């Protein structure tokens, strides 16, 4: 378990923890911020263990669907869910762009009270994934964060140069 690759993203918000918690657990708020530049439609949101969040993101030509099943709900500090891409009927579906992308990602969101401010931490790791899925995710995470650093900048520069 501990050697699974984990994608981490953290952000501090200038708002009390209870309010940040609400933005994840009330459909009206969640639809408002989740998915940048797309229309987010929440078909179901039942934030309790065993409950689901059925989400549709409308993009220009098609919609992206995902299903999240909550496994732990500890208000207002910890939310654990299993996130999966689905088809329009909410059946699990692999990502056409990345066939080996993990079908289900264990998603842990924690909310830390900083006295009026809140630190939110989101962790993604493959859930019951095949070796290929884990390798794919590890590659992406490594490339995305720590492992790359200067390498990524070098590549970005390289690509910019090649396109001029």
């Amino acid at each position: 378990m501990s050697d699974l690759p984990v994608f981490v993203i953290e952000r501090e918000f200038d708002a009390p923890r209870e309010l940040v918690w609400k933005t994840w657990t009330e459909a009206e708020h969640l639809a408002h911020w989740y998915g940048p530049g797309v229309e987010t439609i929440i078909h179901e949101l039942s934030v309790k263990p065993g409950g689901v969040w059925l989400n549709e993101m409308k993009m220009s030509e098609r919609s992206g669907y995902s299903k999240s099943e909550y496994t732990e709900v500890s208000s207002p500090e910890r939310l654990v869910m299993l996130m999966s891409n689905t088809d329009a009927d909410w059946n699990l579906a692999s990502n056409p762009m990345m066939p080996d992308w993990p079908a289900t990602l264990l998603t842990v969101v924690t909310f830390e009270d900083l006295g009026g401010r809140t630190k939110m931490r989101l962790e993604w790791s493959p859930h019951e994934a095949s070796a290929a899925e884990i390798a794919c995710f590890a590659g992406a995470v490594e490339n995305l964060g720590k492992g790359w650093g200067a390498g990524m900048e070098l590549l970005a520069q390289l690509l910019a140069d090649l396109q001029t």
Partner: protein
Amino acid sequence: MNIGIASQPSVNLDVVFAALADPTRRAILAQLSAGEASVNEIASPFEMSQPAVSKHLKVLERAGLVTRAVDQQRRPARLNAAPMKDAVAWLEEFREFWAGSFDQLDGLLADLQSPNKKEPGDE
């Protein structure tokens, strides 16, 4: 999660990620960005054997990042940046999905806390 990428990648991105995950292969790519090079020329700055370089080149070739001339004795390797562009674009969109969402969340939280904000039905 589902964060639509405009263009269909030319090769499987997993293969590209695997190829790019190695620092030596990234260095080879950086070297090739200056121009095509033979296995010998690639090997010299790395103090690496030719078979070792050939092995790395094969991985890069499979990922579509490098092409080799077939009809020449020295078979120079040449950088093909297209698949790398797909990989970088995918990673960028991935990161930006959450960053963009959190920007929107920041705005929403500010609105929700604004003293001027009046919910319909207030007063």
